[in-house]
């Protein structure tokens, strides 16, 4: 058996870790695990920092192929934060039963979809639903989504960070002007505008600096506020009301900005995103014994929760799945009363879990990987990574990056403020998602793969810690033109 610690929460997790070992040997002695099964086990001790997530306290993950299940690989993930010592043995026993392909499976799940790559899971439809019906969600919870963030506010709006960003940009503009290369129109793009607070702060600061220096750049600005959600865009307007003459509001898919803004190819001097990449569709790969696996998931509700939801919304439990489908199709109007639809949505989301399995990738073909990343690059990246590893492909983030940089002016730059890992070792030192943030999904972004894709697109990327707030986990990705 391999016991793998995937976190650095020494003190707070130590007791649970001891309980895990006790429970495992107890199950062995009692005959609930046989020796062969024991020898194959890989126990992963995680620490999931997101109080709301998609995991049971104990989760079993088997390898499977089209030919059937492969009993030689069994991963057991234990969330040492969520599990209580009293429940550990029972949960482990149940997990062991699920691990045995010949044992009858314990019931207890209302399955909502087939196994897919995470990217194709209905979990992302819930995520989309959240952004499209944000107002309904916030009305029901009584708090804005920014208030729901850890810490209650976004690092995007840190005044000092914004001031530094403006100063950097002003310096670039000044330099371009000194070389007679400043375009007549100075385009700036903010993707994912939130409440518009950062854009407002940025524009206020830029105007002030411009007036102080007497440079008259402000009037040449074309500031584009872009977001996936029209509702969000509408809410951002008041924050930039003093600058509306130079602002444009664009509904834009962050996965493909160039599709909307092709007319600005090579024209935008500064593009900024905060906490967008961590909310884009994602999927994971795992490497076990030198072999790569795709992590597939399927969404389910624990049957007790499904029963409770059915009862609360006067549905037969067999109707819950159909109603979830309808919710994802038409939104909260799936019920006669919209408020009831929102309540159903929130309840299902709260209880939604993801079952996982590993599917071997016999060949890492291009269609398995995000655009811009090929099998050889991936192999190069993994060459120096820990041998047994589970990592995010961050396919949405990579796709977004690839489809954003063509907008940049030759001297323009992209800044992304987000939660990045910049070393694959970090995958073994903490949980990178998915977690639930209110009604949305959050994943850490694989900065190592992003760097690879960026290099092929002609950009070097650098990560700098967000030093403006102590304890912040965010970093700022900077792009520079690759020579």
């Amino acid at each position: 058996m391999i016991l793998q610690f995937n976190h650095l929460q020494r003190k707070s997790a130590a007791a649970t870790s001891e309980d895990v070992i006790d429970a495992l040997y107890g199950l062995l002695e009692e005959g609930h695990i046989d020796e062969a099964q024991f020898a194959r086990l890989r126990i992963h001790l995680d620490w999931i920092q997101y109080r709301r997530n998609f995991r049971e306290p104990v989760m079993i993950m088997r390898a499977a192929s089209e030919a059937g299940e492969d009993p030689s690989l069994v991963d057991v993930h234990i969330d040492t934060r969520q599990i209580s010592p009293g429940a550990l043995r029972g949960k482990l026993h149940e997990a062991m039963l699920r691990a045995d392909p010949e044992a009858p499976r314990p019931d207890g799940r209302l399955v909502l979809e087939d196994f897919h790559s995470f990217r194709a899971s209905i979990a992302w439809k819930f995520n989309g639903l959240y952004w499209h019906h944000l107002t309904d969600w916030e009305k029901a919870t009584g708090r804005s989504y920014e208030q729901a963030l850890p810490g209650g506010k976004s690092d995007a709006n840190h005044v000092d960070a914004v001031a530094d960003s403006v100063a950097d940009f002003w310096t670039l503009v000044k330099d371009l002007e000194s070389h007679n290369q400043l375009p007549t129109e100075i385009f700036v793009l903010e993707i994912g505008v939130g409440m518009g607070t950062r854009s407002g702060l940025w524009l206020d600061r830029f105007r002030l600096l411009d007036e102080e220096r007497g440079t008259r750049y402000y009037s040449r600005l074309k500031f584009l506020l872009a977001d996936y959600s029209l509702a969000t865009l509408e809410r951002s307007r008041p924050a930039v009301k003093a600058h509306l003459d130079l602002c444009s509001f664009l509904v834009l898919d962050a996965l493909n900005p160039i599709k909307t803004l092709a007319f600005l190819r090579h024209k935008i001097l500064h593009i900024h995103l905060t906490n967008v990449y961590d909310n884009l569709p994602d999927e994971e790969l795992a490497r076990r014994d030198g072999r790569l696996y795709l992590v597939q998931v399927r969404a389910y509700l624990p049957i007790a929760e499904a029963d409770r939801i059915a009862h609360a919304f006067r549905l037969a439990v067999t109707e819950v799945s159909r109603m979830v489908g309808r919710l994802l199709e038409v939104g909260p109007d799936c019920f006669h009363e919209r408020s009831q639809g929102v309540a159903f949505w929130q309840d299902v989301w709260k209880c939604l879990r993801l079952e996982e399995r590993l599917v071997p990738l016999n060949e890492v073909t291009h269609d398995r990987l995000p655009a811009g990343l090929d099998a050889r690059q991936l192999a190069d990246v993994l060459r120096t990574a820990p041998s047994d590893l589970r990592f995010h492909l961050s396919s949405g983030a990579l796709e977004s990056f690839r489809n954003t940089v063509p907008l940049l002016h030759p001297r323009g730059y992209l800044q992304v403020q987000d939660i990045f890992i910049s070393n694959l070792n970090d995958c073994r030192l903490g949980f990178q998602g998915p977690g639930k943030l209110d009604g949305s999904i959050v994943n850490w972004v694989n900065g190592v793969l992003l760097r690879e894709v960026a290099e092929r697109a002609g950009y070097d990327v650098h990560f700098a810690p967000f030093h403006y707030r102590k304890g912040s986990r965010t970093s700022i990705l900077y792009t520079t033109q690759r020579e």
Partner: protein
Amino acid sequence: MSLSLLPTTVVGSYSMPGWLERLKTEYFARRISRVDLDEIHDTAVKAAIKDQEVAGLDIITDGELRRDNLIDYFVERLPGVQIDRASKKFYYDFYDSVVEGKLPHASLGLVEDFRFLLANTGREAKFCITGPHSLSKRIHNKFYPTEEAFATDIARVLNLELKELVKAGARYIQIDEPYYSGFPEDLVWGVNVLNTLVEGVQAKIGVHICYGNRYGKPSWEGSYRYLLPRIFDAKVHQLTLEFARRGEEDLQLLRELVPHFEVGVGTIDVKTHAVETADIVAERIRKSLKFAPAERLFVLPDCGCFHLPRQVAFAKLCAMVEGTRLVRKELGT
């Protein structure tokens, strides 16, 4: 060999196939031999020549598929330049290179490439080299007192190479100087260097000046206005410039340029995969004709097709040829 009115050609490079990129990188990883790579290059060059012929171009190049990028093919051949072969991770990266003494005069061996091209096409052939100004910007100079002195010595070495090319039958040579646009202030001495390079070279000499195409994106922006009037002192026959991507802003400069030079007009945007129609190309040529007579114009893409997928590059060249035919017909030729 007489050329049609509005002769069509490429700027130099043709589409770099993904499989060739991977094989080049394999070579750097020491997983295939130099002999194998040379054979692969020969095959790829033949295919590039064939594509240009089928597309209907009047003047053919070797597609520059032997080259990793616009710099390294020359840097690794320039005598006296030391390169760090471990500095490349991907074939397209630039070597770290340095010059620590006076450049000796010796052959770069480019003539073999040209002979290969001649042996594989019956059409007019063009050979392209990267100019001394651009090369001097990428090689770390630890010897020469000034950039101009360094670039001038590169020009002297390359001048001998150009003369060898002419002896081998080259009648049309193109010098690529994209870094002019990044360092317009260098043009003051850059034209002197260019004149050193072409002195006594008995061929049609063109100079390609663009705004960069590294990784398929521009490196700089601005107006070709910076070229004037200094460029009029250049002892070359032709300038090839990019206009398709950059729009019509600079087209009127043709009026000032054509008394001094033929102009190769960029009519294909190589920084987008969207394929122009023949009508779009024809319209771009017609707009150029408002400022310059057809007899002084060549028709080209904006820059090399290196970063375009092969099917896109081929389709774009076909559109360029067809668009040119439309205009020729209108002109009665």
